[in-house]
């Protein structure tokens, strides 16, 4: 570790008592608390920080903030390895490890820099045009591997991310001069204020510009204003927080950087980022402005930087980007950099001003410091392979080379209108500052200060003060007495809009990150990609991680001049969410892994767990697929459980089955409309199976309805339909049949359901003890009573084909009853039954499983329910079933399929195929359910087949992959066709 050679001995907002050690490209360097990675690199004299995206040209740090396009680094190691972090935004910490991206083996010796030698053969669209023959896809893989910047870690992201909501009266984005004035004024009125700042400190340009506000030094004024804001009980300041999104109705997305890699590695509870979803009554955009580069040949060499950034590093971090600096500008601001550098003891070689008349007062300031001023001049070329060595200046017809190691350029400032644009606001080109400014608002916001094109401190203070007071006043917080803070500014001379300096040849870069040069824009115009949106897609200008923060306006202006339009006429591309790149984890928050969608547990979960159930996710519930015994395979458990039901008795936990109480004078009339079949004729104490359709006639659910009283039904739905069908009923009642006197109450989770099924089911229930007359409770009957002295609703319905008692008890009593039934059932060989066996049993019986046997096109007619069309009243979906297409007899029908050899299980998804007139195999249907029946000892399959009901007995061929199968079309019921067992 060596002493940082470019660090000034004194000054800067860094804590020299807290030195920090970090590693760059494997070497160790030192910095201070308060540094960013970029400022520490500059202090250590590191100029080459990476290679450009396409040509692999050497690049150095360009800017000092979020707009940085070159200094993208791979940060950290292992799972905490993060690509493409902007060095200008990374706060330095002890042990930080970083390296440049897009270069190998190092930034200095990069193998792919050969691209630069052939760069004139690699214009915009080169890849698409060249690799056309015979097929782009042949080349795509190779090209894509060569492209890209950083590398994504292949480890799971170990970081913790959090998210939260916040509400406020006034959200102020940006804690620069205007933002502080606005937030302080709003907070004083008593409004709830949230001041959001992306930097680690408040002040904006006061951090590196010398200003006097209300008689105080600027930085001191900013700190005082921040303290006054923080002292208000309802105001908060969020530092290190970027407002990345401005969405509808004044909602904002903020991303707050909380812990760095090292802190998160030490403390697993420390979030890396916190995402804020903010709703504000008023939004004040004090987002400042971003400096534009000048476009001239060789403007991308390491050492060419934005003038404001050079001043920023020098003043705020006491880090000098170079020893001999040339300024190149078309406006007054760069003069401040020249004066600051000189006053800090650095050498300013010359100030090159494109304007023929330099401002007299600033010229005088330069003169008093003996800094040469070259008005009416331009830089037309630069020299230096890995670092700037000299610039060529042209004045009139003459040109000469000036030796220097840093070129600080300023092409003026672009108001940061990204969030305003995201909010839906329209922009207008303002010739006064040669850039876009907010014009017409759509949402309840106001832009102030530099974000609105007002660059003087006095204007920023006045606009911020006024907006803060007016915004809070408009929502009912009276303004506190007081006047706007004051600052004395010099009058700025007009900017000379200058978009492109045609120089001595070589590429003049517009977009550093995407390597888009003026010649690419010219090519785009030449090939008629002239609209700004086409320009963007054709050249990739304004894409990638910086989203054209420094390049957009220059590019639009160059395109405008090439096509003979004004900049305002050529328009601009739309700014989109997010303002700066964000980690994907910030979008996920804590909703990852097990809590992404937490599984619901059955009321008897504890017992199932003890019994060693294999749990799976069925529609959001953790349900036992089977209960494998020690050493038993899943398939064997399924077979054993199914045979237990057929030969003795089984217990099935059906608690997730949907239960909806429908009550009221119009309940029967309502259910006649909701079900395809009639429910109003159902007798009290009886149960009926029904299908529900949507308006297309498509089956959306099935289940049984029970009439509890004349005006009271219990609607049973499939487990997956529980929430959906309750919502469906509400929608009809609230939106269509408002005159119906019916209430719908979903009670699914209030009840636990234990289905006792099998030839010994009745015996088990009798032994357990019940006051219900079991002999009178016949198939499709219902009774209320007590089972093992627990209050219960008992339904005789069957999904297995065996006599079944579906016992509903209070959810909290479910596990107790389950244990009693298991104990009492020992002598009958009772077995718990999982979903696997359950599905096997219903398939043997040919019972429809909605969503497995049917899909989003299966109508009631397709499954053999033609009788419903005779129903006199209206029902949902009826009119659609009357359409000729729905009446066709060659629609897919629900059928059974028996393997011809009686041995082979047909694969689910296998297509039933037949040759058409041309001899081509066409699908006529497919297998939807298929099992091997341990009871029948044959394979059993269900499926959909065109005109299937008329084809019973027909032999068909099936195809799955390359395998062919043979089957016979049969009735869907394989087991106990007469229903003797379930009626037993």
């Amino acid at each position, binding site marked *: 570790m060596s002493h940082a050679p470019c660090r000034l001995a004194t000054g800067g907002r860094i804590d020299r008592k807290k030195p920090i050690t970090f590693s760059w490209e494997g070497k160790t360097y030192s910095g201070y608390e308060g540094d960013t990675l970029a400022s520490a690199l500059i202090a250590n004299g590191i100029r080459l920080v990476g290679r450009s995206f396409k040509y692999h040209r050497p690049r150095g740090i360009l800017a000092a903030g979020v707009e940085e396009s070159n200094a993208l680094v791979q940060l950290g190691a292992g799972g905490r390895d993060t690509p493409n972090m902007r060095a200008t935004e990374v706060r330095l910490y002890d042990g930080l490890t970083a390296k440049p991206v897009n270069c190998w083996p190092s930034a200095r010796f990069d193998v792919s820099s050969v691209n630069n030698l052939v760069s004139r053969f690699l214009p915009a669209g080169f890849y698409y045009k060249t690799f056309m023959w015979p097929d782009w896809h042949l080349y795509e893989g190779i090209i894509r591997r060569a492209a890209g910047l950083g590398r994504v870690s292949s480890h799971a992201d170990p970081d913790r991310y959090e998210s939260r*909501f916040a509400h406020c009266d006034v959200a102020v984005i940006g804690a620069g001069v205007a933002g502080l004035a606005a937030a302080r004024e709003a907070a004083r009125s008593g409004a709830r204020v949230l001041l959001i700042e992306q930097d680690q400190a408040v002040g904006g340009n006061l951090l590196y510009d010398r200003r006097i506000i209300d008689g105080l030094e600027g930085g001191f004024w900013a700190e005082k204003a921040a303290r006054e804001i923080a002292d208000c009980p309802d105001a908060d300041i969020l530092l290190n927080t970027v407002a990345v999104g401005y*969405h*509808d*109705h*004044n*909602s904002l997305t903020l991303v707050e950087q909380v812990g760095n890699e090292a802190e998160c590695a030490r403390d697993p509870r420390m979030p890396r980022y916190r995402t804020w*979803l903010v*709703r504000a009554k008023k939004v004040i955009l004090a987002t400042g402005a971003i400096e534009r580069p000048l476009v001239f040949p060789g403007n991308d060499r390491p050492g060419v930087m934005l003038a404001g950034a050079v001043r920023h590093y020098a003043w705020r971090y006491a880090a000098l980007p170079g020893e001999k600096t040339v300024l190149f500008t078309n406006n007054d601001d760069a003069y401040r950099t020249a004066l600051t550098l000189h006053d800090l003891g650095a050498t300013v070689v010359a100030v090159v001003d494109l304007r023929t008349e330099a401002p007299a007062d600033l010229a005088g300031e330069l003169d008093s410091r003996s800094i040469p001023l070259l008005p009416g001049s331009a830089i037309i070329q630069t020299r230096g392979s890995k670092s700037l060595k000299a610039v060529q200046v042209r004045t009139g017809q003459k040109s000469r080379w000036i030796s220097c190691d840093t070129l600080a350029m300023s092409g003026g400032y672009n108001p940061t209108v990204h969030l305003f644009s995201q909010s*839906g606001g329209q922009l207008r080109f303002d010739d006064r500052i040669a850039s876009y400014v907010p014009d017409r608002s*759509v949402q309840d916001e106001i832009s102030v200060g530099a974000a609105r094109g007002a660059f003087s401190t006095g204007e920023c203070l006045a606009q911020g003060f006024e907006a803060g007071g007016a915004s809070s006043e408009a929502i009912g917080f009276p303004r506190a007495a007081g006047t706007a803070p004051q600052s004395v500014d010099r009058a700025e001379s007009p900017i000379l809009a200058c978009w492109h300096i045609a120089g001595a040849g070589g590429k003049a870069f517009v977009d550093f990150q995407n390597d888009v040069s003026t010649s690419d824009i010219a090519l785009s115009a030449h090939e008629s990609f002239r609209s700004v949106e086409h320009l963007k897609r054709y050249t990739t200008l304004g894409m990638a991680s910086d989203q054209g923060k420094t390049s957009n306006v220059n590019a639009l202006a160059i395109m405008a001049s090439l096509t003979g339009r004004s900049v305002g006429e050529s328009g601009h591309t739309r700014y989109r969410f997010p303002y700066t790149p964000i980690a994907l984890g910030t979008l996920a928050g804590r909703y990852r892994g097990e809590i992404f969608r937490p599984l619901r547990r059955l009321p008897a979960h504890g017992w199932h767990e003890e019994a060693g159930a294999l749990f799976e996710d069925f529609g959001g519930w953790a349900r036992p697929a089977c209960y494998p015994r020690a050493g038993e395979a899943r398939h064997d458990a399924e077979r054993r459980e199914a045979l237990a039901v057929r030969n003795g008795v089984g217990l099935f936990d059906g608690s997730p089955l949907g239960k909806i109480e429908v009550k009221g004078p119009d309940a029967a009339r309502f259910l006649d409309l909701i079900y395809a079949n009639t429910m109003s004729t159902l007798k009290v104490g009886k149960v009926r199976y029904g299908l529900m359709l949507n*308006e*297309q006639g498509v089956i959306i659910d099935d289940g049984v309805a029970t009439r509890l009283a004349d005006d009271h039904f219990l609607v049973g739905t499939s487990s997956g339909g529980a929430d959906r069908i309750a*919502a469906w009923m*509400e*929608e009809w009642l*609230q*939106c*269509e049949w*408002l005159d119906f006197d019916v209430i719908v109450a979903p009670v699914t989770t209030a009840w636990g359901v234990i289905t006792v099924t099998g030839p010994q089911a009745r015996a088990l229930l009798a032994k357990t003890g019940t006051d219900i007359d079991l002999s009178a409770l016949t198939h499709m009957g219902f009774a209320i009573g007590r089972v093992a002295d627990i209050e219960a609703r008992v339904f005789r319905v069957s999904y297995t084909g065996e006599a079944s008692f579906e016992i509903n008890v209070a959810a909290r009593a479910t596990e107790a009853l389950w244990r009693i039934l298991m104990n009492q059932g020992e002598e009958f060989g009772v077995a718990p039954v999982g979903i696997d066996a359950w599905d096997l049993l219903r398939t043997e019986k040919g019972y429809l499983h909605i969503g497995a046997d049917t899909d989003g096109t299966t109508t009631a007619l397709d499954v053999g329910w033609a009788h419903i069309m005779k129903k006199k009243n*209206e029902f949902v979906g*009826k*009119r*659609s079933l*009357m*359409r000729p297409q729905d009446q066709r007899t060659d629609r897919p029908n629900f059928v059974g399929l028996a393997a011809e050899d009686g041995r082979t299980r047909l694969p689910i998804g296998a297509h039933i195929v037949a040759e058409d007139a041309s001899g081509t195999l066409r699908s006529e249907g497919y297998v939807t359910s298929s099992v091997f029946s341990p009871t029948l000892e044959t394979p059993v399959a269900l499926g959909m087949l065109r005109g299937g009901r008329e084809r019973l007995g027909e032999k068909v061929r099936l195809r799955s992959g390359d395998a062919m199968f043979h089957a016979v079309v049969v009735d869907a019921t394989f087991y106990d066709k007469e229903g003797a067992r379930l009626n037993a």
Partner: protein
Amino acid sequence: MLLISCPWCGPREELEFRCGGESHIQRPGPCESVSDERWSDYLFTRKNPKGLHYERWLHAFGCRRWFNVARHTATHRIEAVYAMHEPAPIHLEQGNVL
């Protein structure tokens, strides 16, 4: 994200709601007297305006009540919230252009 004023619960985040699409669609019937064209219109034809759109919303993660919203499809401004049985406030369309 929209801020929607549920008539029962007050202003709530959009993610508590579900949009049910265009409102005020007459369900034709009885079905024997409805032509295929009329039925097809009912099922599939929607207005899709650039401007005020009358749509129904459900406060799904709240009171579970449906209500109508008049929302400008370009600006997302919500100009009115009204009950399911109320007619569309078409007077709001006067001068409500982009």
